């Protein structure tokens, strides 16, 4: 009997194939997205661990970095430092394995253009030799070939730059590091753990291929390039036994307590030899931290996106089943009257969503594994420029997603099934359950309106729970679309807007301390406007997280007065020459540290503590920044500048002289181009997600409005028999759909704004702070889309009324 009842139900469901297919599709998309995003999260997490590990194929990522940001150590100093560190090392559970001095320099690569001209490409050069820690990674992949540099005139270039520079093994490249240029023969292409996330130092935007280069030379090669003595270093790479935990910037817990103790003790040791040295763990290495944050973000996001989609599917199933039960109420009542027990009615209604969920899940798994996951790998390889390696497909994750989906889908059928089993046959057969009225308040509110309008409003609000569920589901689908639009818009504002509108410079020349004089002379000779900048890494006192302290010559919030304008959201610009010095902090610092205007705080440059008074808060910075007057910061640190902003006169021929006198050049236009190119690369992905949001909104609204109409067949048929013109009925429907679309649109927009802000607030971390602005244009766009979908369904309703067989309906009236 149960089999027959289930068969009957499935046949009924099959009658509304379109809705059934739509629900299966939503579940499929939910499962597919979950698997694809989940795969991305697992793939990246596993891949980074594999790359970083100390094995034959890994690079043995350092655990602690000791950096000299202002100067270099000679051979004796660096050996001395390593010896002291080793001598003072007391932790026996995490013994010191290696302290490797390394020389890393920012510099330039001179690239030849097709027209024969030359272009300066900012770069970072590492002197590595064999290397025990932070080795060059050359996976068995088409990306990488060749060998490590063995002689002083050989170089391994980062595989990220191959395509952009159009270079091949055996080619010669000309690079510089502020002391003239040298030619090197390319002997290999590979990656480096500090540049897996390939961005110009200080920037968060992945560099477009060919606009930034990194190279891995022998120590002697780099020493020759920089014209320094053998054994010169500016970094100590500390390798601790195993892979100790370190404090994650995204959590409030202190995960790496043991490592923190080691770092604190090292700070005391190092400060006795060099006060300016800064010490940090993996969270202080931009590339490592950003990739970790990306993987962590994906881990946080994928269950949310999956749950959202499955929830929408669940709501659609719930509403459809409720409607089905309503339409089958008489049948169920007859079955109950004939003696069929409740227990026989209920299973089929529970089985229905399980069946639907099963097919959706199976299709979702197939598409997720064979389409979604490879697509995510492709997107990753495209944006990050790193080949995906290793077996990282997690069947446990597929099982988790499928199980959660099936549970959610099953849950959506429980209430309708319970309703079906508990229908009162007597009431149904008397027609009493058919009557569902709008609330008294609505009746009262509409009593003074024309009857047609009153009826429209009352009909729409007859089922407030269904309407609320619909709005919720529309809100969720709008969240998918809206979050993408809001994020893209805010990203564009922050990245491109900041670079374009706030920067009044054309190029930024990076210099060794003291070398700025040469740039200034050159600029003055060529009538080039310039402004000095002092930028150094620091960290809040008692906090290991890194920030950038910037010393600016001119502060301005608009116009062309300053080379770099700021967006002040609170307080005022700092005055020069006060004690403690005045400074601005970005709103990310305010968010994470709770620092406010008027307070005095301290930041640490190595072991040197600098106190300052906050006079204002700025917005728009992705990374944490404190802005000082350069003169103030300079007197505290005894350093003049680390780079020079340059604004060229029109028609000025940007010769390559900068290559000889600076250690790196950042070009504003190239930064903007890189961001635009990144946005372009992701366009297809973003559009796909937007389309998904719109399609789901269509399905949800379509489902509810069709159910609404189907429920009112009796009403509409009565009106038609009594002579109501289709035009008038159409106007009523249009009005109803307009109201639903408008309310749904507004709720969808609010949902999107709040949801996106919540999503972003759960993703932001110290190194990546981001705020979403509720752009009124996008909000109106979201309202417009829902309104349009809703209105577009009016012809469907009209068509339905047109097709209504009045003779059959009249027969129904008489039965």
């Amino acid at each position, binding site marked *: 009997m149960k089999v027959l009842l289930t068969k009957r139900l499935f046949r009924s469901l099959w009658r509304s194939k379109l809705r059934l297919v739509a629900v299966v599709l939503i579940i499929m998309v939910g499962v597919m997205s979950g698997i694809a995003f989940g795969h991305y999260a697992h793939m990246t997490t596993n891949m980074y661990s594999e790359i970083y590990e100390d094995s034959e194929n890994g690079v043995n990522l350092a655990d602690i970095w000791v950096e000299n940001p202002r100067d270099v150590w000679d051979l004796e100093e660096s050996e001395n430092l390593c010896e002291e560190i080793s001598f003072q090392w007391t932790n026996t559970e995490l013994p010191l394995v290696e302290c490797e001095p390394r020389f890393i320099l920012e510099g330039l690569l001179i690239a030849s253009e097709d027209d024969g001209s030359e272009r300066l490409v900012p770069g970072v050069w590492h002197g590595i030799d064999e290397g025990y820690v932070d080795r060059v990674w050359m996976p068995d992949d088409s990306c990488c070939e060749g060998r490590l540099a063995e002689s002083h005139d050989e170089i391994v270039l980062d595989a990220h730059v191959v395509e952009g520079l159009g270079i091949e093994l055996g080619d010669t490249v000309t690079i510089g590091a502020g002391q003239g240029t040298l030619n090197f023969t390319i002997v290999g292409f590979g990656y480096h753990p500090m540049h897996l996330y390939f961005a110009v130092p200080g920037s968060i935007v992945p560099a477009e291929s060919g606009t930034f280069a990194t190279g891995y030379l022998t120590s002697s090669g780099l020493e020759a390039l920089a014209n320094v003595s053998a054994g010169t270093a500016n970094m100590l790479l500390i390798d601790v036994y195993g892979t100790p935990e370190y404090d994650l910037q995204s959590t409030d817990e202190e995960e790496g307590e043991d490592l923190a103790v080691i770092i604190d003790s090292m700070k005391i040791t190092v400060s006795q030899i060099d006060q300016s040295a800064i010490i940090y763990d993996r969270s202080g290495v931009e590339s490592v931290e950003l990739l970790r944050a990306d993987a962590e973000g994906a881990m946080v996001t994928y269950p949310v996106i999956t749950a959202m989609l499955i929830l929408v599917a669940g709501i659609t199933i719930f509403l459809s089943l409720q409607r089905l039960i309503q339409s089958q109420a008489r049948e169920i009542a007859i079955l109950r009257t004939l003696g069929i027990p409740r227990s026989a009615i209920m299973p089929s209604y529970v089985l229905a969503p399980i069946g639907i969920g099963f097919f959706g899940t199976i299709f979702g798994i197939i598409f997720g594994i064979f389409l979604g996951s490879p697509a995510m790998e492709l997107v990753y390889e495209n944006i990050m420029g790193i080949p995906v390696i290793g077996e990282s497909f997690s069947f446990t994750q597929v099982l988790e997603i499928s199980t959660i989906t099936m549970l959610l889908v099953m849950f959506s059928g429980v209430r309708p099934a319970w309703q079906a089993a508990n229908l009162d046959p007597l009431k149904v057969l008397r027609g009493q359950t058919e009557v569902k009225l709008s609330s008294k308040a609505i009746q009262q509110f509409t009593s003074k309106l024309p009857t047609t309008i*009153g009826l429209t409003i009352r009909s729409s609000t007859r089922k407030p729970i269904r309407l609320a569920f619909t709005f919720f589901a529309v809100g969720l689908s709008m969240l998918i679309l809206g979050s993408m639009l809001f994020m893209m818009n805010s990203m564009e504002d922050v990245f491109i807007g900041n670079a374009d509108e706030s920067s009044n410079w054309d190029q930024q020349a990076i210099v060794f301390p003291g070398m700025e004089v040469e740039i200034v002379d050159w600029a003055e000779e060529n009538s080039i406007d310039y402004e000095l900048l002092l930028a150094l890494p620091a960290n809040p006192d008692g906090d290991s997280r890194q920030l950038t302290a910037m010393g600016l010559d001119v502060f301005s919030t608009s116009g062309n007065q300053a080379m770099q304008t700021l967006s002040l959201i609170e307080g005022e610009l700092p005055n020069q020459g006060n004690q403690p010095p005045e400074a601005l902090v970005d709103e990310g610092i305010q968010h994470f540290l709770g620092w406010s205007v008027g307070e005095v705080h301290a930041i640490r440059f190595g072991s040197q503590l600098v106190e300052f008074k906050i006079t204002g808060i700025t917005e728009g910075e992705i990374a944490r920044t404190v802005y000082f007057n350069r003169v103030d910061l300079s007197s505290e640190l005894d350093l003049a500048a680390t780079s020079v902003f340059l604004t060229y006169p029109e028609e000025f021929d940007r010769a390559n002289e900068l290559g000889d006198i600076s250690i790196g050049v950042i070009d504003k236009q190239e930064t903007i181009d890189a961001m635009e190119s990144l946005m372009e690369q992701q366009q297809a992905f973003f559009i796909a997600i937007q389309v998904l949001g719109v399609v789901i909104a269509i399905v949800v609204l379509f489902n509810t409005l069709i159910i609404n109409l189907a429920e009112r067949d009796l009403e509409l048929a*009565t009106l038609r*028999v009594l*002579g109501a013109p289709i035009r*008038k009925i159409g106007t009523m429907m249009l009005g109803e759909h307009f109201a639903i679309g408008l309310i749904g649109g507004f709720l969808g927009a609010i949902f999107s704004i709040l949801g996106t802000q919540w999503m972003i607030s759960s993703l932001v971390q110290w190194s990546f702070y981001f705020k979403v602005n509720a752009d009124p244009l996008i909000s109106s766009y979201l309202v417009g889309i829902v309104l349009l979908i809703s209105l577009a369904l009016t012809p469907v309703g009209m068509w339905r009324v047109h097709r209504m067989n009045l003779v059959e309906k009249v027969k129904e009236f008489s039965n």
Partner: protein
Amino acid sequence: MTNNLVKIEGMKRYYEMVSGTVKALDGVDLRVNEGERIILLGPSGSGKTTLLNCIAALDNPTAGTYRFAGEDVPRYPEIIPRWWNPIPPLKGFGRFSRIAEMFRNLNNIPLRLLLYPLHYFTYSRPLARASEEATSFRRENIGYVFQFFNLLQDLTVLENILLIQELAGGRDEKRARELLALVGLEEEVDRFPTEISGGQQQRVAIARSLAKRPKLLLGDELTGNLDTKTSSMVMEVLVKACEAENITTVFVTHDESLSKYATRIIRLDSGVIISDEVV
């Protein structure tokens, strides 16, 4: 009393069913004069509801003529052109016939997309236009009372009548109240259908059907859902209202006892009129 309001000649209504052709009406000739109160009697399947539906222009006769107040009543094509199903039904698939049918339907989709403009202009559009003409005909001439009243539950008694007036193009609250007084419900105007009895609901339905001053009032088993006492009360109200408004009426019923309210009784069987007597 001698003007023909309805003039039907040789009306046939055949339905093509799987089991064969069903002749619901098989050559009916009927003239209804203004002011008459006709009751159609007959067993189930005799064709009386089909006749009523054809008179209301809800159904489309297969053959015959139908004139209302001297004018032809709009009719519309109901046979879907053959070419609309370019792939004929597939036979010989036995237990797989459902799959074959699904396959056929799927394959018909692209062909239908191609043929849609032709279908729209030669079938859909004329059908929609004719259907709308039939609706106008009902709006202007016909009142209809259903067995289950079919009042809109979300509207008050008064609003149910106002709605029909608004849809017909003229809201007239005074007349709506007069009609409710005529059927004895002046006290119940602000009540909802669920708050009044079945007999009262049917009286509201009668008032509603009179709201736009129809020439002909049709009723299909309008007392079928009421007890004897309430049925009599409703019929008395109806007769009174129709006389007051000078409306011709045709009712379908099983209940012989309602004959006393008629001026003419027509009996049908197997789609033909077997007796027609003036009371």
